[in-house]
């Protein structure tokens, strides 16, 4: 037997279909207005786990970016100070060569000794250099002055490194300790010790001692150059990490966008499609509902 069709049936079927169309249209509308296809976990339960990971990695990278900026500025500052140390040591080398010259009268040697004395305190100033209120050459004891202005040759800087985190599991030491630059108090070529010896040798006009000190100064000079190139190498490493972080950020943002963002062209197209279907269902509905036999009976 053919199905008996009643207005109630038609009406509820129509309502159901119109509702379906409207729900779909609302979904598209939501995607359009938020620009996201992932608005709640049930939109894409698998995607949401990725989305959460991308978002938190991006947030951490933002922090690592700040760390890199700070590390770079510390390394640059260290390099500048080491450059100055380098210049001053070169000046000492010149002075020593001058002092070793036999033609100098004692008064000339004394003048050189006075300059060496100035350089000695200048070196201590370098050793006690601060950035943002922190001593840069005293390892982790950033709040303590590493070099005693009166007896720097007996002072030792803290030898521990300050590590900074630039990515999950990537920590890089960013400080140079005073002992690496100026030598430990026990080292034969401790820069302060060498300066003191030069000064004494000049005052007492002891050429043999001066020559010995000059040799030690040269070995220290080589070490300073080594340390400086290490700073350069570390700066490179941090810059490399920075570049990698930028690349990673770009990739993460792309992947996040793939998971979360709506494809506008597609969504607009779908929306228009849904809208016309909805309107069609409304207008056919209006035609179906009003007609019964009553309309045609006299």
């Amino acid at each position, binding site marked *: 037997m053919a*199905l*008996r*069709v*009643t*207005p*109630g*049936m038609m009406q*509820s*079927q129509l309502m*159901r279909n119109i509702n379906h169309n409207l729900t779909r249209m609302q979904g598209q509308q939501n995607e359009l207005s938020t620009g996201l296809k*992932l608005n*709640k*976990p*049930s*939109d*894409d*339960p*698998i995607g*949401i*786990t990725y*989305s*959460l*990971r991308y*978002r*938190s990695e991006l*947030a*951490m990278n*933002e*922090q*690592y970016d*700040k*760390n890199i900026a*700070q590390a770079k500025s510390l390394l640059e500052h260290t390099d500048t100070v080491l450059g100055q140390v380098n210049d001053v040591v070169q000046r000492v080398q010149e002075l020593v060569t001058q002092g070793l010259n036999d033609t100098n009268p004692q008064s000339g040697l004394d003048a050189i000794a006075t300059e060496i004395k100035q350089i000695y305190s200048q070196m201590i100033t370098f050793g006690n250099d601060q950035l*943002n209120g*922190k001593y840069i050459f*005293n*390892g*982790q*004891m*950033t*709040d*303590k002055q590493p070099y005693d202005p009166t007896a720097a040759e007996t002072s030792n800087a*803290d030898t*521990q490194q*300050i*590590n*900074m*985190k630039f990515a*999950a*599991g990537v*920590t890089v030491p960013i400080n140079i300790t005073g002992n690496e630059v100026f030598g430990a108090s026990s080292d034969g070529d401790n820069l302060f010790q060498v300066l003191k010896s030069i000064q004494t040798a000049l005052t007492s006009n002891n050429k043999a001692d001066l020559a010995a000190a000059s040799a030690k100064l040269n070995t220290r000079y080589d070490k300073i150059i080594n340390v400086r190139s290490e700073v350069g190498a570390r700066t490179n490493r941090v810059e490399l990490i920075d570049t990698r972080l930028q690349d990673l950020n770009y990739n993460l943002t792309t992947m996040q966008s793939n998971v*979360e963002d709506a494809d506008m062209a597609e969504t607009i197209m779908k929306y228009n499609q849904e809208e016309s279907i909805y309107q069609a269902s409304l207008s056919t509905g209006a035609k179906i509902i009003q007609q*019964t*036999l*009553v309309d045609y*009976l006299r």
Partner: protein
Amino acid sequence: MRSTFHSIETAKRALFTEQANISTTGHNISNANTPGFSRQRVNLVASRPIEAPGYMRTNIPGQLGTGVEFTSITRVREKFLDDQFRNANRSLGEWSVKADSLSKLETIFNEPSDSGVRTVMDNFWSSWTDLAKDPESITGRKIVRENALALVDAFNETNKHLADLKTDLTTNINTMTSQINSISKSIADLNLEIKRLKAYGDNPNDLMDERDSLVDQLSEMVNVSVVDTDDGYEVSVGGIMLVDGLNAPGTSVAALEAQFNGGGIVGGKIEGLIVSRDQIITDYQSQLDAMVDTLANGEITITLPVGSTYQGTNLTEEQTVTVKGINGLHQLGYLFNTPPATPQQAGDIFVTSDGSATFTAENIRLSQTIVDDPMNIATSMRTEVLNGASETIKGNNTLANLMAGLKDTKFQFSPVASQNGIASGTIDEFYASMIGQLGLQSQEADRQSTNQQDIVTQVDSRRQSVSGVSLDEEMSDLIKYQHAYSAAARFMTAIDETLDKVINGMGVVGR
């Protein structure tokens, strides 16, 4: 012998019967939009002819018809479709409630967003990295403190929302139980009236429709089984008798819950509500609790770098130690000191409000000592004896780095969390898997409730096909009955004219 006025009687019966037909059609048209109404039909039969078989019959040949009469007015309805509708309606009730609860859970967890738990967690970890840049500063510590407070608030608040949702569901269960009882009472009342009217031999169609419509309403809430007895409907849920003929013993929340636990309740809004409250939300609460407890207390393995002070000695090579969560790690750190005071070991970061050893999203708090003074947040893991006095090295940021590293450290989760499927993993992984699970459940519930809605509409449409009022049909019937009525009237006129001939026109021959 037939009577003179026999045909007048026949015509009158026809008029009455057609009138009954017309009235019933009118009744159907009036109720075209009444929910639960079934169309009614007048059942016509030819009335008993005269000279019915018997000893007293005359010898006239043939049986003379006496016209029409109606024996009953019945409703057109199929019980099978009612049962089908109620089954589908029950599943719809269950899934629509579950879908609703799960979508509320999604709103509570509010992911993906920039204000959910994930964001405050990230802020917390990154504030430690920030502090590691400047371990000497109080500013960095304040930022860590504020972010830790935000994290604790986020946990507390999420927990409160979950608890509130549970309370709402309990209220709903209570309301629905009284609704079930009041509907049961109405059904029992209708049973009584229907029984009374049936005793007179009538079909109380409209009352029966009303009763079926009430059972339909019940079926959305709970799985009812209906038995039609002499006393009317017997309605029961599992082992609970809701309507026992003329009485409605009703039920209580406790009885319904007992039935649920015993497996007597399958489907219906009540089941959806109880499952949402006792299983779904409880599951997410315990997962969140497990996450919080693990964060504060869960076992982690970390590597201490060279130079760190561990158990009184400074390490000369890396050492791997196992500590209990963020609190255990923080306790390895040293607070800043001014000699001659000796370095203090740091305390807990998180504490429980009730002193319990187990952390939950509800009882986790930031330690009051840290709230009062952020300098109680440790960053250093190194002490040295300087000038004869032991001192914490301020520039050491080992602890801050290790804290920040916890974001990527695998925690051992307590067994309760194994429903999540993660026994060991990072906090982020645990949380993501929890949100993923929520998404899957919600998607499933959405799909199910849409499906069930379609099924219910379809079954209802079948019912409408059988019982619904078709105006076209009623109109054509109306025309049919109207014509029949007119014809019966014409018949009456014809008899009238014949009688007129007999009474007034006869016996006057030749006048």
